[in-house]
């Protein structure tokens, strides 16, 4: 059971281009404990882990391993100490067997040849010790994601790792696979292996962890012992009591139910069960906030409404007309979509503002004989630049070299050139500076005033509260809560997303 301190990070500081990300953070894991790490997006969890695994260099502070100060400058350094990171993005080799993966690069040999008998036996011993549902000779091709993750854990254990770092390990697992993983984690703990468990999912943390460190805005917010891990308290700590009282994190929602319904989504259900029976409406002039944890299915739902991915069943109605969603049809019907992955899906970095703005609008750009009217194209982009103050204002500037905020304005700008009925924005201000954020919010508000229905998907609670007229919260593919004409706080939204029933205040 939990014993001496295995790893301790003291007084850790880290900043990126002058912006502090971690300030005087203290983090300690004892031998044989499952230590959870939580915090809102941007609280500094992944930065802290990257410092521990040698991906980033800390600005100040000291890491101790079993009481001795150590320098970790590369992933190899941390492997040598006995730390193994279980990657979210799986790094197993599908054509090889379980045993070949576990001992990759370290295969036992007889002369020039791999000693398969010995390798399989060594793997079997590990499997038996920790009771993994695996066989050494199975080819990974034939395994599910959960089992592939176990191979990575096994690989760590085969190198005598004392500390396993798991970053959102259940993100892509089915319920059954997750249960298997939880059993394994408990088994590992009983064998004296320490685990850092990073998760957004409070219920998992609640069930598994011995202790919980919460980070908030790059600082330690709390270290809770098992008996103190009470959902309401955790959420309060993550958000911060003071913050929750402040103006930015509570809001009286107002929406007008009598306004004409623009978008009507009926029983939208995914082919692979990432969301099911999603029904909601958005009214003329309304900004609907779609909240929930990452992986709750929000992005998948809005992609299906726009028609990038097809839903298995369900209907999408716009202004009383049933749609057959596809990007082309959506554009013609007056739906705009600003995707989450701006750089890869939002715009073409090598093209100019003019070309990017024109890209979705060639049906309305004038044609001269057989070719597109350059003058009309240019006039259009000038209108966009003027309307939302894109900088630099040179219409021929490559969008790839602009700031994140202006890139996003270009993405928005192309939709403003159309007669929009519905605009969907997914994480509209991720990686954008504060000033540009405000500008983007006012663009959305202006659109709403003009009667456009707007859906905002965001994981930033402050943003959600700031822009929304009404909020619905998704959790594990279902709509679990609607906040309408009530006072809402960050805690309430987070609790709904976590599936925590809030006690009456």
């Amino acid at each position, binding site marked *: 059971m939990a014993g001496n301190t295995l790893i301790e990070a003291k007084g850790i500081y880290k900043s990126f281009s002058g912006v502090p990300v971690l300030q005087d953070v203290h983090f300690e894991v004892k031998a044989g404990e499952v230590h959870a790490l939580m915090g809102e997006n941007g609280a500094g969890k992944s930065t802290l882990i990257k410092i521990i695994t040698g991906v980033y260099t800390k600005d100040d502070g000291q890491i101790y391993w079993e009481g001795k100060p150590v320098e970790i400058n590369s992933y190899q350094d941390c492997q040598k100490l006995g730390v193994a990171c279980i990657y979210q993005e799986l790094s197993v080799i599908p054509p090889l067997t379980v045993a070949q993966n576990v001992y*990759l690069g370290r295969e036992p040999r007889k002369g*020039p*040849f791999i000693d398969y008998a010995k390798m399989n036996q060594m793997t079997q011993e590990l499997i038996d010790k920790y009771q993994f549902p695996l066989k050494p000779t199975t080819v990974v091709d*034939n395994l599910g*994601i959960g089992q592939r993750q176990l191979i990575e854990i096994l690989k760590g254990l085969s190198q005598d790792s004392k500390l396993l770092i798991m970053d959102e390990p259940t993100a892509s697992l089915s319920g059954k696979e997750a249960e298997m993983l939880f059993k394994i984690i408990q088994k590992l703990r009983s064998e004296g292996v320490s685990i850092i468990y990073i998760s957004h999912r409070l219920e998992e943390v609640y069930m598994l962890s011995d202790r919980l460190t919460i980070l908030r805005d790059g600082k330690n917010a709390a270290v809770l012992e098992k008996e103190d891990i009470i959902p309401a308290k955790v959420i309060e700590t993550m958000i911060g009591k003071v913050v929750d009282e402040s103006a930015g994190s509570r809001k009286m929602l107002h929406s007008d139910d009598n306004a004409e319904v623009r978008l009507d989504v009926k029983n939208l259900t995914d082919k692979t069960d990432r969301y099911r029976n999603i029904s909601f409406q958005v009214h003329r002039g309304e900004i609907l906030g779609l909240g929930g944890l990452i992986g709750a299915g929000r992005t998948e739902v809005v992609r299906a409404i726009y028609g990038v991915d097809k839903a298995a069943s369900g209907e999408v109605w716009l202004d009383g007309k049933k749609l057959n969603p596809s990007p082309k049809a959506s554009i013609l019907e007056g739906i705009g979509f600003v995707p989450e992955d701006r750089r890869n899906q939002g715009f073409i970095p090598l093209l100019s503002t003019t070309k990017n703005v024109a890209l979705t609008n060639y049906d309305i750009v004038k044609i001269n004989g057989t070719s597109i009217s350059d003058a009309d194209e240019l006039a259009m982009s000038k209108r966009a630049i003027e309307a939302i103050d894109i900088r630099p204002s040179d219409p021929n500037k490559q969008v790839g070299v602009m700031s994140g905020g202006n890139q996003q304005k270009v993405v928005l700008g192309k939709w403003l050139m159309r007669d929009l009925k519905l605009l969907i924005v997914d994480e509209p201000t991720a990686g954008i500076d504060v000033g540009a954020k405000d500008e983007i919010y006012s663009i959305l508000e202006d659109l709403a005033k003009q009667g456009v229905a707007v859906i905002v998907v965001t994981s930033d609670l402050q943003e959600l509260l700031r822009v929304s007229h009404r909020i619905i919260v998704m959790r594990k593919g279902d709509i679990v809560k609607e906040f309408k004409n009530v006072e809402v706080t960050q805690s309430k939204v987070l609790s709904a997303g976590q599936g925590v029933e809030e006690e009456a205040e």
Partner: protein
Amino acid sequence: MKRMNQTTMRRLISIGMLLILVVLFTILAGAGKGKFFNFDNLIEVVRDASIPAIIGVGVTFIIITAGIDLSTGSMMALVGMTMANIYAYTLLPFSVMMLAGILVGLLCGLCNGIIVAKFNVPEFIGTLATMSIFRALTYIIAIRDANGVIKSQPMNHSQYTWLGTGIGKFYYVIIAMIIIVAAGQITLKYTRFGTNLYSVGASKKAATLSGIDVAKTRLIAYVITGFTVAIGAIFTTARLQSATTAIGMDFEFNPIAAAVVGGVALSGGSGDVIGTLIGALFMATLENGVRKLSINTAYQYVIKGAIIIAVVIFDATYKARMDRKAREEGAKEGLE
């Protein structure tokens, strides 16, 4: 219930394709002397498959790492012409001549390896460039007559041409092919290097994290290909009893086609040398059968190309389906 794994399944499919082709030609061209299905003709098919299969061993290694080599045909010509020069202008023994040929092959492979693995030039463009360079070098060192016109250099000394024959119908090239394919398969399946090839092809990132030297692994695959090309060049010139600048023209298609038909995925990380051998036999059977049916040989290339496209489409859709199934079933079974 245990499902058959994808690799075994794919192997059965390529064997099935080969058998279907043999049966088809037997029906269309008939069995018996002078027809398709008889011992003499079938051994010819195997003989024709040998050189693509030998060079296919190296090319398979490269494709498993998710690479490609377009220069093997030109490389073969350069090796052949190097040996022709030694043959024409020196009195060195044939063993030295062949060693020199092998050395040139290794050097060409090393060049490809350095360009691709050390300087990270994309494989396709890097080896397309060396394809042009090796062919040009062949012309530069080509043997010329008194008027300076390139001529075909005879290499018809019996101490060399015996390599083009065999023990009865068991041609030496077939024996060499069996040895090299076996050595290739053992390397692939029973050595760390073989495992490393798969790892590099499946995920360079995962391979690096496991301490595998990705650049070195890729480089060695190209050097091995250089060696197999040199062996191929030796048997080709011995059989032709001459060296010309046209040797290996358009040949690079053959080992790649053999590998693809045999189940070596161009995306890397899967397939093996036995698969490539089956693929080489398939392509040789196709060529032979088309000849026996007296079909215009131009159609041969249409058929070959179409088959490759079909196989790649099949592999991609089949793999996507199997992967999804495996994930779904994996999520269900074996977890209790």
